[in-house]
């Protein structure tokens, strides 16, 4: 009986999370962006649900890539990784021990970032070098220079994202570790059940801000959209995805939004995602509030270059470190 109960909890949570996550891009576009920009905006189902379904019905083509199969497999891998990440957050899975800890979560998120790098280096889109144009004619400047695709640029930027860009998110994860004194999710939740949510302490509040900035950086939303900014790299790593693989890209993004919000609810509010627990409603609310806040931020900001990106990351990271220090005091 216990086993069936657990199975229902796990599968139900995953399914509900998945369905909710499909609505998030639409909510962002219709209720925030369109409202701020004083227009009607698309129907709520269009960007998140109908677009992926449409892509499933498109003709599958071989992308222009040195390793087309690996390239096409990458969004599916990253979707699976996020599913696993969400799985580890569900209380029924805490028997896995070290896998249901902050260390595993950090590792999985790192893999997620490395995916951007692989995607970038494997994509060879028509928009830059492959565009047929006689620009290496006689008299061209520096004809010997090696030519690089936009995606290689994106790949380099993804490397920087791994190196320093996602610092705030990881620092924010360790605020709750410092408070609870344990890396295990079960201990962190137990700590919050006795001491109240970490969010309502000084360290927790600071950590929440840091987490939010890290969330935006990891999701590559404006203003931190260095991987896929419109003025230079167009869509960056995703340029060559077509048909159902693009559908996976769309779904991955929505699901990542949901999962990170769930992670926040677990670490800072002490509410693990579990469909059979009435407090699951709070997880859903957090999952709605996060994309909405992000959409408000992104509607009012330009793209950052490194000149703004470095100081922002550095400043937010310092707040994060202060939060950890405050957690120990």
């Amino acid at each position, binding site marked *: 009986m216990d086993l069936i109960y657990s199975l229902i909890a796990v599968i139900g949570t995953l399914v509900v999370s998945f369905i909710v996550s499909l609505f998030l891009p639409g909510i962002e576009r219709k209720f925030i962006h369109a409202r701020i920009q004083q*227009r009607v905006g698309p129907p709520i189902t269009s960007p998140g649900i109908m677009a992926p379904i449409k892509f499933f019905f498109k003709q599958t083509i071989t992308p222009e890539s040195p390793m087309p199969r690996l390239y096409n497999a990458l969004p599916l891998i990253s979707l699976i990784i996020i599913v696993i990440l969400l799985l580890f957050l569900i209380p029924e899975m805490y028997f896995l021990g070290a896998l249901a800890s902050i260390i595993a979560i950090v590792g999985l998120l790192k893999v997620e970032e490395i995916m951007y790098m692989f995607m970038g280096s494997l994509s060879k889109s028509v928009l830059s070098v492959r565009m047929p144009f006689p620009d290496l004619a006689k008299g061209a400047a520096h004809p010997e220079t090696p*030519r690089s695709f936009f995606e290689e640029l994106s790949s380099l930027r993804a490397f920087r994202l791994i190196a320093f860009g996602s610092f705030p998110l990881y620092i924010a994860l360790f605020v709750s570790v410092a408070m609870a004194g344990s890396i295990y999710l079960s201990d962190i939740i137990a700590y919050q059940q006795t001491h109240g949510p970490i969010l309502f302490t000084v360290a927790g509040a600071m950590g929440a801000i840091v987490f939010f900035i890290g969330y935006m950086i990891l999701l590559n939303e404006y203003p931190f959209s260095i991987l896929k900014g419109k003025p*230079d790299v167009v869509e960056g790593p995703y340029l060559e995805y077509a048909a159902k693989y693009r559908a996976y890209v769309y779904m991955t993004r929505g699901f990542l939004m949901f999962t990170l919000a769930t992670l926040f609810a677990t670490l800072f509010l002490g509410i693990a995602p579990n469909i059979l627990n009435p407090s699951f409603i709070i997880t859903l609310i957090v999952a709605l509030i996060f994309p909405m806040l992000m959409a408000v931020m992104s509607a009012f900001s330009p793209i950052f270059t*490194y000149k703004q990106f470095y100081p922002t990351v550095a400043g937010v990271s310092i707040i994060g470190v202060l939060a950890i220090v405050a957690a120990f005091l």
Partner: protein
Amino acid sequence: MDDKEENRTVIEAEVPMGTVHPGALEPYRLRLFVEDEIVRDAEMTVGVNHRGVERIMEGLPVEKANSLTEKICGICSNIHIWNSCRVAEIALGIEIPERAIYIRIIMGELERLHSHLLYLAHGCEVLGHETFSMRLFYIRETVMDLLGMIGGNRVQYGSAVLGGVRPRCELDQTRIQKLTEGMDLIEEKLTAFADRFVSDPMVMSRITGVGVTSAEDALRLACSGPTLRATGVKSDLRTEMFEYDPFEFDVITHEDGDVKSQLLMRVFENFEAIKIIRQAIRDLPEGPITNRSWEMKDVPITKSYVEAPRGTLYHSYALEDGRVRNCVIRTPSMANIGAMQYSAIGHHITDAQLCIVQCDPCFTCTDRAIQIIKI
């Protein structure tokens, strides 16, 4: 660019962009030579859009040729047809009625408004600020409606004909009323937008100190129009055109020559344009709008320079049996290409596209001449 010679030694990679690119919109090829994402050299290839309008104009009756110049550019179509008429009017000594001049100026300044608003919207789009871009497009709609009301078409509305303006463009009381209301609306909206724009710290940090062109460099690169004025050089052909004699307006200059001063200068020029339109409406003289009593004769090559929204526009042709010969057109963006390449150097790739957009490129205009003669 001798003073940047030492930078040319390290070039790691080339990033080609175009001819289809969201930041550029227009088809042109841009090759950026980068070292660690910092642009060390840039090469722009224009000529993608060359269609050869001068060749079509060759041998056409002058009236037809004039209306053809409108198709050179969809953004500043009116100034092309105005300048082309101006060539023939100067050559044949045609006297233009006062009222026609005023209507031409109203159209010209409305066009400047819409061109500058489009420039600002495109600039915000390249900054990555979709909301500001949409707000500017919304303000621009008012201007487009006014242009559509007067000219009958939203884009190719060209009002000037030889000896005056088209009868369609006559301003009656209703239209003047609508113009007045439109100017008030644009001024109000644009003031609100400008206040919001300059108080945004994120936008300001993106555009301050980026793409700097000093006044000496701008003069050396032979820039013209707003691009030159934003570097601090007081140069506006409107002060020398006899049409603008009765009007009072300031020539706006900004000192820094970076993207910020380029953008803000356009905002202030819009207010000047509104001022000129208000004066023109107030003092609009009565009388005919076309002078049909002129005679065609053969004339040698005649030149005319006007201040287009993007800089100095040059048209010249000779007349033979009432037909156009040896037509030459030089558009403002041609003069500013040097500044576009120059200002992009030393900045991040994301800023490079912004540095090009700050010079208000219009390459569909620019692709006129096959041979570029150094002046």
